[in-house]
């Protein structure tokens, strides 16, 4: 089996938008892919959240095995709150680009979360979700960065996570900044597409996986202007202008998809998919306010009260100072994870009391009612042992909340546990999308829902590679033509490489002094 495999990820893509975009001629290439290939709903991880979902797709394993539950690594113990950025060191399962590269397929990964520091492979890594100033260090191989700088329009400050740009919560973005904000994302995707083309053409990558993440950003902010069910029958001039600009984004994205497929060649198997879908959110649930009312936590005297509908304090800032840790046993730390962490050890809950404590906590959350309509706000509680079962679930939240409108909770203090949003925003939905096309793939078929884990198996099989026996992913056989599949059946393969086998290059102290210093420190017990 020959030919390339291409994963073109669109963060947050949903048929709620893609179907009308295809019908209205906004995304004609994607329409041809649907007509010529296979499409279906792609079921996200139990909590549809970008770091969990993309790493699950990239490894073919659920978050309980990958160890990735958030962009932030959270641990709550007797020392208090540990709040560190999740890095590739925390990813406990091997990625499909690493698996492919080990077996002779030159591979590239672009804009994936938790992909820095890069793990060496035969190929290239340009990580996403990092600040621009750190890009040069994290591009692999080192010489690739200079070539990126030579690309027309290359601008790291727009390519990557710009903390100044991202610092303003979307719900607080003033109307006069929408246009510039959307245009940044149009330019950002063009940069990623150019990098992908460079790696396909000049580096001859057999497998390229990339994420266009602008769709997620646009949909969080502009959902009310995009969802056909919500678009005003008589939009204002401003609403028409912003919606038109959003459609320009999707048109440009469609062109990038088409161009990269052309570059990859007709024998490439292409998968376009998302990590989760999207829907509307109309309210904000301040989970910690409810927990405080029931004695599970205490806000510190310095914790401000939010009246603006925000979810977190400013991006990446440790929220630990919001809470009085002498009186906090359960707390929501990060908004995106919708997770409640139970404190263990001294000052927390002892093992013998854990089960009853967690059950009582879950009942408290499920029992909360909207004072206006009397309905339950927490639709479902996901327990760690159930949805994050696996060898790497030690840092998973103890409880994950599924809210009635699929929204993200707020960790902040507020006058009441529930507030209506001043305007509708977009939020994540479990139903993402998968569209696949290429040799051996069925044509014009809509198939049953596929799990996001199974995309890994689909891509590996598309490269003619065996499926590691320790991968949770299963090959979605309905994607393929039966005759082709019978001639190219899936094969089980050796297990994936454990994390220790592909740790990054050895410690990088000054080479002249490294060995001597470390040996001395090791002897003295400073270094294990």
């Amino acid at each position, binding site marked *: 089996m020959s030919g390339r495999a291409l994963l073109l990820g669109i963060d947050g893509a949903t048929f709620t938008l893609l179907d009308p975009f295809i019908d209205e001629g906004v995304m004609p290439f994607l329409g041809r892919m649907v007509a010529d290939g296979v499409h279906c709903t792609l079921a996200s991880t139990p909590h549809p959240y970008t770091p969990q979902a993309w790493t699950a797709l990239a490894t073919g394993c659920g978050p309980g095995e990958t160890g990735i539950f958030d962009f932030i690594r959270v641990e709550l113990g007797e020392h208090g709150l*540990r709040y560190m*950025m999740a890095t590739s060191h925390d990813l406990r399962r091997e990625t499909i680009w690493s698996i492919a590269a080990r077996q002779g397929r030159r591979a590239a990964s672009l804009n994936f979360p938790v992909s820095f520091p890069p793990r060496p492979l035969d190929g290239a890594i340009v990580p996403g979700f990092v600040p621009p100033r750190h890009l040069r260090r994290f591009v692999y191989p080192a010489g690739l960065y200079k070539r990126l700088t030579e690309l027309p329009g290359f601008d790291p400050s727009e390519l990557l996570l710009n903390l100044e740009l991202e610092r303003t919560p979307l719900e607080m973005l003033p109307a006069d900044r929408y246009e510039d904000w959307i245009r940044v994302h149009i330019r950002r995707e063009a940069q990623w597409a150019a990098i992908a083309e460079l790696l396909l053409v000049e580096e001859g990558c057999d497998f390229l996986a990339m994420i266009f993440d602008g769709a997620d950003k646009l949909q969080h902010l502009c959902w009310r202007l995009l969802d056909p069910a919500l678009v005003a029958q008589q939009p204002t001039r401003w609403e028409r202008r912003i919606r038109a600009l959003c459609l320009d984004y999707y048109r440009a994205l469609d062109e990038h998809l088409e161009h990269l497929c052309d570059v990859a060649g007709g024998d490439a198997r292409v998968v376009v998919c998302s990590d989760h879908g999207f829907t509307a959110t109309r309210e904000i649930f301040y989970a910690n306010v409810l927990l405080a009312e029931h004695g599970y936590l205490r806000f510190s005297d310095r914790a401000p009260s939010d009246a603006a509908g925000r979810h977190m304090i400013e991006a990446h*800032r440790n929220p630990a*100072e919001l809470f009085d840790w002498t009186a906090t046993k359960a707390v929501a730390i990060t908004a995106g994870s919708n997770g409640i962490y139970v404190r263990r050890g001294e000052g927390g809950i002892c093992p013998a009391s854990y089960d009853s404590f967690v059950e009582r906590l879950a009942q408290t959350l499920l029992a909360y009612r909207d004072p206006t309509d009397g309905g339950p706000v927490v639709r479902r509680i996901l327990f760690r042992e159930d949805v994050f079962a696996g060898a790497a679930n030690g840092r998973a939240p103890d409880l994950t909340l599924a809210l009635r409108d699929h929204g993200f909770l707020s960790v902040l203090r507020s006058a009441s546990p529930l507030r209506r949003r001043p305007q509708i925003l977009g939020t994540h939905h479990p139903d993402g999308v998968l569209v696949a096309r290429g040799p051996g793939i069925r044509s014009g078929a809509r198939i049953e829902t596929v799990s996001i884990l199974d995309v890994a198996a689909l891509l590996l099989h598309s490269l003619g590679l065996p499926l590691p026996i320790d991968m949770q992913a299963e090959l979605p056989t309905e994607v393929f033509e039966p005759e082709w599949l019978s001639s190219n059946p899936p094969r089980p393969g050796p297990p994936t490489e454990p994390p220790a086998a592909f740790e990054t290059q050895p410690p990088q102290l*000054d080479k002249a002094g490294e060995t001597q*210093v470390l040996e001395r420190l090791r002897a003295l017990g400073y270094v294990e």
Partner: protein
Amino acid sequence: MTEHAPGAARRADVLVALIKIIEAEIDWDIELLDAISRDTHLIGDLDYDSVAVILLLNKIEAEFRRPNLPFEELLMVDGTIVGDLSVGEIADFLHEHRNGGHQ
């Protein structure tokens, strides 16, 4: 209390190793007017941003091969997030947590 010479030598080794790590982590343009020392502050003197501080702490864990250092003790004092860290504070923290425990 005067520290014994061997203890002082251990602290010095930690400081040397730590400074090398901090220097290696700087991948942004900055003009260092003075050599990095105990009194150098990450944010005020070296222009570390909040993400770089987190990445530095990750790197320290990796370089010292001590994955569970309780950095929260360093980053929060009396319930307040510390505004900036000096190299000396980090070195003292590492010295106090040698051998896997608080000394």
